[in-house]
């Protein structure tokens, strides 16, 4: 079993798994406490449009997904910051729009032969080294931004009105947060795929919330749990020859149901 660790694809997979888990722990916590899960889902699926366009133009799919997700994030932030009443309908439309753009551009691409399933459901075992470095870079960037603006992000998430009165640039910070979510989603697509990103963003923070009295603690617990889920799922996937993304999510979901049960039992 352990000799497999000497293969470079496995080392890349482990590194990618850890980076993405830390990323999802930090950003997922902010997504959950700000009730932005649907926004994250919209960006993740909409990013598929960028993948399609990138294939059509012969660019790197992750670059395409990144640029498209960035633009979607700005649009969603602009719409949702002002009017929180009909966010779900607007996001639903953008969600479908992005996926449709992706499918149409792939149709238009000559000699289509790429494995699209790996973007929908991830393939952590085929992450190239360049993507591992990109994920590491994004993780460092996100950790840096969240660390620098920790108290402002905390105040905005807990009580935006009060934060604004204390001179926190709430609007700017909200845009930054949505863009960070987009970055996180793009980095995670490689590992669990854009369909399953949501699970890795929400399950660890949901479980961690019950054990945390501070936002920072919740982020660390979530990152730790996401790492356990990712590595556990990866092991299952290698040992039983299963799809990696789905294995990771199944491990996470089982833990989620256990946590739900435990919560019920406690009360």
């Amino acid at each position, binding site marked *: 079993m352990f000799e497999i660790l000497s293969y470079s694809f496995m080392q890349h997979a482990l590194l990618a798994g850890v980076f993405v888990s830390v990323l999802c722990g930090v950003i997922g916590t902010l997504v959950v406490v700000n009730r932005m899960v649907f926004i994250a889902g919209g960006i993740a699926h909409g990013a598929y449009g960028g993948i399609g366009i990138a294939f059509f133009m012969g660019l790197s799919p992750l670059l395409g997904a990144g640029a498209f997700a960035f633009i979607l994030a700005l649009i969603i932030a602009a719409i949702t910051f002002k009017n929180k009443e009909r966010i779900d309908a607007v996001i639903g439309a953008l969600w479908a729009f992005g996926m449709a753009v992706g499918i149409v551009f792939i149709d238009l691409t000559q000699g289509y032969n790429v494995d699209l399933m790996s973007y929908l459901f991830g393939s952590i075992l085929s992450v190239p080294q360049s993507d591992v470095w990109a994920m590491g870079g994004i993780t460092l960037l996100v950790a840096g931004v969240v660390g620098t603006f920790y108290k402002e992000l905390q105040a905005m998430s807990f009580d935006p009105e009060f934060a*604004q009165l204390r001179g926190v640039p709430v609007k700017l910070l909200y845009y930054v947060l949505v863009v960070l979510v987009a970055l996180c989603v793009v980095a995670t697509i490689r590992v669990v795929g854009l369909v399953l990103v949501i699970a890795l963003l929400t399950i660890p923070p949901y479980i961690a919330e019950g054990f945390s009295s501070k936002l920072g603690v919740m982020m660390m617990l979530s990152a730790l749990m996401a790492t356990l889920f990712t590595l556990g799922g990866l092991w299952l996937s290698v040992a039983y020859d299963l799809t990696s993304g789905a294995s990771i999510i199944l491990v996470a979901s089982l833990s989620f149901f256990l946590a739900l049960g435990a919560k019920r039992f406690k009360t």
Partner: protein
Amino acid sequence: MNALHVTDLSFAYGAQSVLEHVSLTYTCKDLLAIIGPNGGGKSTLLKLILGLIEPQSGTLQVFGKSPKDATSDLAYVPQNTNTNLYFPITAFEVVLMGCLKPRSFGFFSKADKDKAADALARVGMSAFSNAKIGELSGGQRQRVFIARALCAQAKLLLLDEPTASVDTEGQRHIFELLQTINKSMGVIVVSHDINVVLGYATKIAHINRQLYMHDAPSKATKEAILSTLHNAQGHLCPVELISAHTCTHPDHKAPHV
């Protein structure tokens, strides 16, 4: 200088007029209670003072400045119902939020933390410093929010329904606290609670689209009203009580400044 100077102010949400020709002056020595029926414009006036929304006509000055320039002079305790009870944050961290300043990033300083500890002590909540905010009772949570407002070292404290979802004992504690705080800063409290009006406020503004200003009722009137309350069977709305006793009276028709 007047802490608050409002002249002929009107505000509408779209076609829905909420405040009409409201005028008001306030100095920090008073504990002003703003009362009135739901939808009468109490919270809207508070938001205007805080600069969260802007009036369509009329002027509003806070310490001689526009509300947007006076934010550092104002401390605000929002309605309890806005709180997300699952949020992972301790009472101490909530109070620290009052120390936030524009463009100062990184972590809170030692001085900020001392200030927050002092504020928690002032409201008698030091023992709950590390408690998660959702685990406190309604009254305790409200005191934490008051401590957060104190941390901001403002000159005027504004509270929106601070005693909603707080038991009677807790309400008394909160108003006694507000009285103490009023010795060092202005306190304006939006409430439909008869206790404030009768026991603690020194000025009362009744808002139902228009504003009527009253001094605190004298001891005799207070007792008369209270005995009516005690003898009353069933529900007696304090707002109705005040409007019935004072606001419909012809002498009080004109909003006086």
